[in-house]
């Protein structure tokens, strides 16, 4: 769908589309420039780009010097040697970031060197770090052709010009690696170097795998967060009480200084009248997780495999197909005492005992199936990558007995609350006292009430709050999710439902009255960066907001309505300023510094150098299953902080010499149960296949449409071979490395059936987020029956 | 076997249509040029031709996707649509040939007391008229079967202008063979049988010439389509079945056999008929092969 807009950008504004992907796909066919790189070598490529840009001085100097921490000096203890940063504990496989801190002078001010002479200033650290990423080494590691690399570097570096911008769009091909987070971080660093953050046509745009992924993270369907990206409390002393949590969590120099207001308002939304100043607003009712444990997806399945977890809800989730290492995960499900599967169709997970070679008599799990209805059979909002939460209405009645997820959860809450109503046990109290006023009929949840509560209201008057600026930490306000505060500011005004499709101002695609985006309907985040330190747009073509001192109509200064006194000026423009509107470019007002656009960061500057679990700068490590014996950039083959659960399941090139990657096709959706049950889609791609190059196929005696067997260190599958010109061997460090690819949509249910690709993928994930490494692993291929 | 839109039932129809009308007009023509000496051929021609055409028409009906809607054909007469022309030709032939046949049936012994058939007894004028009309409609019908295939986008059929002619010639050959077969089987008129055999040899020669011209042209313009028949999946059917059995072998038998035996002409005529069917089958199927 988004290609419509790329096409338009190309047609109307001469945009160039650069596509970088190990596979030659339908997108590659339409790109202006296509280059391939070996799966798992994104950092090598981006590092090469950084090197090219820094060595040739192609970065946007004004932007970088003023709006990033390029000139900040790091403490002298900082080192990087042979693939490791200073502060690494090899036993714990963890870093301490003490040696990555900013240098402070006697008065605790951060030391900077605007002359960029100090070798410890960030920009020089970057230059040195990426000097190893010269073009030849990069092309040797990635397998990208040198002329392609230089073409892309030149073309994209041109967006550093003040009147040009570029957007980096990425998807799971970027994130599903043991270095996935650092891959995305590279994108952010690139955009900062080129001055592409906060301007129209810029930014880092995540192409989600599912339409409401943004919503799922906004509302904290992640173990380590609570809604609005507040950290979920842990079982550490610093989180033992509300006061301790607020002290530990609040960053006083950024907008996060308001965290206590957001947290208390959230607690009030959760426990209503039962959350009072006397009981820390029911802070102790919030579950706290053990910080030494990991509760991410793979960790849960490892625990499940050990029999630690007894029951599971699979809400619209199909781990047997979608989770990595199907042999491990599907077998782990057999340890469950009970499983509740909620889905539109009978998924492979909901009938996990039906998988081939399994005797159902050996499995004791009690399985409940709750039929859910589709998105057109219910109403609610979904949030896009642009943080816009578009409301959708119900179009048809649900089929049969299927219900909306909202109603299913509502029923659970109503029934659980009833079950616990008389309990005096402390562990039951959080549910017993849960504030749940969305209706007493279990089958009908008042979604309007939910929406209003998410926005938040005054707990005394019941009036909706105008925005998160009005949230308080004294219990007088509640808000289910502070970032959505402002979406429903008045009774009857659910802004998520707006449908005015006019490009409101400036012709930069703002559409301010179509639905509503958080925060407070800002469409371009960090848009302060679109103006220079004096408050004037870097370029007329890329203007978003700017500082004016006088009313353009009357020529008079603005009057502050609160004090009736003249104001120094205000920020005006095409978008809601991502800044306090009255703070002048040269002023400081609380956490706002006039020329520091990145208001959510402690120093207000973009972080070229910034803390991540595996270091302050991205460094290339090979995927866990690597075809190389040695990492050309250091002696460290694997990301030093990733957790390895099953060492014996690592794939090595002696047995599995072919690199494999998994992906989607637009005809099928995720783990496939909806599309494989839709006849018009099933007929387009009826069964599982691999895409294999003509060269590799002829080596193996495989003809197009032959059946093949694909083996990895985790499992085997049989499927068809699509022999194509679009896949060819790479030359990696002088030797030929073949890459094959496959969709992962298939399973044993539905109309269109096929082998499950994830039998082949490993249980290993990213060092920060634990996202599984689905995109780069090793296999072997042979002709099948 | 590759997927086809026009399947075997249509190959049978094309064959039966050819044999039927050609048996009929062979009878008419021999009797016409022979100044009435070959009435038996005219009679047998109608007895063979009309039922075969009726069976053929029924086969056509069953092949339709919606057989009960066949009457839609009768609402349309379109010169550009050979099928439309064919529907009307078949209908006209069935009527004329049918009436003609009834005039002959009326003279048979079993018809002596039949009042319905009695209406047609002695109707020489009707017999003449329907005979000549049947001749014209018959020749056009034999031709239309080939032109029908040629008015499509199948390369094998539409790349030359010879197919209608080929099917006409082949039909004539099979019509003569059908009459030969009936006479030989009834052990009648060995002299007439030999005349038919001689005539058939000329027709076979003509057919070989047309086949050669057609496949020469096809090999030049659409070699892939031609090779399906000449060297591909249908090569054996073509060379052994059509050329060998259907054309060359019958001629050899007719030349070499004794002039007194009935067995040889019977064998030769069966071979011609088999070859004629195979010609329809091969052309129909090879034309629908996916290249």
């Amino acid at each position, binding site marked *: 769908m988004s290609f419509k807009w790329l096409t338009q950008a190309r047609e109307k504004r001469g945009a160039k589309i650069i596509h970088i992907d190990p596979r030659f796909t339908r997108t590659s066919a339409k790109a202006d420039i296509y280059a391939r790189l070996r799966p798992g070598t994104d950092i090598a490529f981006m590092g090469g780009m950084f090197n090219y840009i820094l060595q040739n001085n192609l970065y946007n100097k004004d932007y970088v010097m003023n709006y990033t921490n390029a000139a900040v000096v790091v403490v002298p203890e900082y080192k990087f040697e042979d693939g490791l940063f200073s502060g690494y504990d090899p036993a714990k496989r963890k870093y301490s970031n003490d040696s990555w801190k900013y240098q402070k002078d006697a008065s605790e001010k951060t030391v900077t060197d605007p002359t960029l002479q100090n070798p410890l200033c960030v920009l020089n650290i970057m230059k040195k770090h990426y000097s190893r990423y010269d073009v030849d080494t990069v092309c040797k590691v990635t397998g990208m052709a040198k002329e392609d690399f230089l073409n892309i570097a030149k073309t994209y570096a041109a967006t550093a010009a003040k009147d040009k911008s570029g957007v980096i769009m990425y998807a799971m091909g970027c994130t599903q690696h043991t270095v996935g987070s650092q891959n995305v971080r590279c994108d952010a660093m690139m955009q900062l170097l080129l001055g592409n953050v906060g301007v129209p046509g810029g930014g880092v745009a995540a192409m989600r795998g599912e339409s409401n992924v943004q919503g799922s993270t906004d509302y904290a369907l992640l173990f380590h967060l609570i809604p609005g990206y507040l950290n979920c409390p842990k079982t550490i002393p610093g989180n033992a009480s509300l006061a301790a949590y607020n002290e530990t969590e609040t960053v006083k120099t950024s907008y996060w200084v308001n965290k206590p207001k957001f947290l208390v308002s959230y607690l009030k939304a959760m426990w209503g009248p039962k959350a009072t100043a006397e009981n820390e607003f029911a802070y102790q009712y919030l579950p706290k997780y053990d910080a030494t444990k990991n509760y991410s997806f793979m960790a849960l399945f490892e625990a499940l495999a050990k029999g630690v977890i007894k029951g599971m809800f699979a809400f619209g989730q199909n781990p047997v197909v979608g989770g990595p290492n199907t042999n491990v995960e599907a077998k782990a499900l057999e340890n469950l005492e009970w499983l509740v599967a909620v889905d539109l169709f009978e998924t492979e997970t909901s009938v996990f005992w039906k998988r081939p070679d399994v005797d159902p008599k050996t499995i004791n799990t009690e399985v409940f199936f709750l039929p859910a209805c589709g998105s057109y059979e219910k109403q609610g909002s979904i949030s896009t990558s642009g943080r816009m939460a578009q409301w959708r209405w119900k179009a048809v009645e649900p089929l049969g007995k299927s219900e909306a997820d909202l109603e299913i959860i509502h029923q659970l809450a109503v029934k659980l609350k009833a079950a616990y109503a008389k309990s005096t046990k402390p562990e039951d109290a959080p549910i017993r006292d849960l504030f749940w006023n969305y209706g007493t009929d279990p089958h009908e949840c008042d979604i309007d009430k939910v929406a209003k509560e998410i926005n938040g209201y005054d707990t005394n008057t019941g009036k909706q709050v105008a925005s998160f600026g009005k949230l308080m930490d004294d219990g007088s306000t509640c808000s289910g999710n502070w970032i959505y505060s402002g979406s429903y500011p008045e009774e009857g005004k659910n802004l998520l439902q707006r449908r005015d499709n006019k490009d409101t101002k400036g012709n930069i695609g703002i559409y301010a009255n179509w639905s509503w985006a958080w925060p407070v309907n800002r469409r371009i985040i960090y848009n302060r960066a679109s103006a220079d330190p004096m408050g004037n747009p870097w370029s007329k073509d890329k203007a978003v907001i700017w500082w004016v001192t006088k009313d353009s109509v009357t020529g008079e200064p603005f009057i502050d309505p609160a004090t009736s006194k003249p104001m120094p000026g205000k920020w005006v423009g095409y978008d809601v300023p991502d800044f306090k509107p009255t703070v002048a470019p040269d002023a400081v007002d609380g956490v706002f510094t006039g020329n520091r656009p990145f208001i959510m960061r402690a120093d207000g500057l973009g972080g070229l150098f910034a803390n991540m679990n595996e270091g302050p700068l991205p460094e290339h490590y090979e995927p866990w299953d690597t075809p190389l014996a040695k990492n050309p950039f250091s002696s460290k083959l694997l990301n030093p902080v990733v957790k390895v659960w099953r060492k014996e399941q690592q794939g090595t090139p002696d047995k599995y010499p072919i690199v494999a990657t998994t992906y989607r096709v637009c005809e099928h959706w995720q783990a496939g149960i909806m599309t494989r049950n839709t006849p018009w889609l099933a007929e387009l791609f009826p*069964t599982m296949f691999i895409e294999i190059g003509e060269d590799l196929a002829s080596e193996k005696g495989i003809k197009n449409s032959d059946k093949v067997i694909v083996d990895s260190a985790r499992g085997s599958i049989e499927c068809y071979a699509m022999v194509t010109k679009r896949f060819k061997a790479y030359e990696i460090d002088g030797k030929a490395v073949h890459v094959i690819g496959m969709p992962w949509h298939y399973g044993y249910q539905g109309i269109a059936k096929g082998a499950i690709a994830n039998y082949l993928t490993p249980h290993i994930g990213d060092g920060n987020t634990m996202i599984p490494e689905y995109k780069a692993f090793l296999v072997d291929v042979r002709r099948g029956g | 076997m590759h997927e086809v839109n026009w399947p075997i039932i249509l190959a049978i129809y094309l064959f039966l249509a050819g044999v039927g009308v050609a048996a009929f007009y062979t009878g008419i023509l021999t009797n016409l040029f022979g100044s009435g000496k070959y009435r038996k051929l005219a009679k047998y021609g109608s007895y063979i031709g009309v039922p075969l055409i009726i069976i053929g028409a029924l086969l056509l009906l069953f092949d339709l996707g919606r057989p009960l809607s066949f009457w839609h054909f009768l609402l349309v007469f379109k010169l550009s649509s050979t099928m439309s022309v064919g529907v009307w030709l078949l209908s006209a032939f069935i009527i004329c040939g049918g009436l003609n046949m009834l005039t002959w049936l009326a003279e048979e012994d079993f018809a002596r007391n039949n009042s319905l058939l009695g209406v047609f007894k002695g109707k020489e004028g009707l017999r003449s008229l329907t005979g000549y009309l049947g001749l014209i409609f018959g020749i056009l019908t034999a031709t239309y079967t080939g032109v*029908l295939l040629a008015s499509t986008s199948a390369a094998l059929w539409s790349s030359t202008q010879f197919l209608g*002619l080929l099917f*006409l010639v082949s039909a004539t050959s099979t019509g003569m063979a059908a009459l030969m077969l009936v006479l030989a089987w009834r052990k009648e008129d060995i002299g007439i049988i030999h005349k038919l055999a*001689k005539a058939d040899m000329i027709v076979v020669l003509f057919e070989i010439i047309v086949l050669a011209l057609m496949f020469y042209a096809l090999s030049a313009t659409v070699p892939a389509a031609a090779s399906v028949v000449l060297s591909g999946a249908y090569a054996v059917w073509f060379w052994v079945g059509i050329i060998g059995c259907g054309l060359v072998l019958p001629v050899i038998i007719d030349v070499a056999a004794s002039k007194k035996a009935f067995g040889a002409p019977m064998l030769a005529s069966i071979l011609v008929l088999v070859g004629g069917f195979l010609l329809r089958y091969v052309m129909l199927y090879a034309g629908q092969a996916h290249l």
Partner: protein
Amino acid sequence: MAELAKYIDVTKCTGCRGCQVACKQWNGLPAVHTEFSGSYENPPKMGGDTWTKVRFFETEDNGKVRFLFRKAQCMHCTEASCAAVCAAGAITKDDKGMVVLDQNKCVGCKNCVLACPFGAVGFSAETGTSGKCRMCVDRIDNGMEPACVTTCPPGAVQIGEREEILKLAKGRVDFLKSNGVNAQIYGENELGGLHVIYVLDDKPEVYGLPVNPQAATANLFGSWVSALVGAGVLLVAPFWLIFKDSGKDVSETPDTGVSKNA
């Protein structure tokens, strides 16, 4: 009403096949059972139940690989072979130039299926009739665009007055040519003018289109003439020569003439 045409720009097509599904959905066509086809194409052919499909081509020139897509469907020819051969009067051309097959009139003889130079017509076992793209004339008559046009995300498929579409296509071809692309239009003059105009970025044969297609009835007259000439030869050679009455008495030549059983 002015003649309409569908515009298909293969350079914009992303091969998503939304048009394939939208067509089935709007026209209520059933899905067909498919097997792995060896490429992204499926079902393997257009048929009575599949009125449009996207074709995929892979080419390689000097090591440069290209992945090409073309939406195939009825071309709504001015010289429509299907309409010319339909003996049931089920296929007609309307005033917009659209060639419409009325499935109520069709008897399922499949002549049109074999006549189409583009293989765009198919037989549906489910309805017993043939079927093909009908340019969503029901949608057009109600002020809407064909289902495929509405669905296409990059706007590669459009509809408009044929004159305007030709202008649009020529402009696009000029633009592509100025960027070094071997662009051309297909459909301007073929078969009297097609009502589907393609903007191609390579030769038609690369995209599986017939160069200089002929109507099915192109050889019709010649076929009849050659056959009737041959009929004349047949009348003379085998019949007249062998069976003509030489005037001799029957009794002079034994085994000729009527037998006792005549």
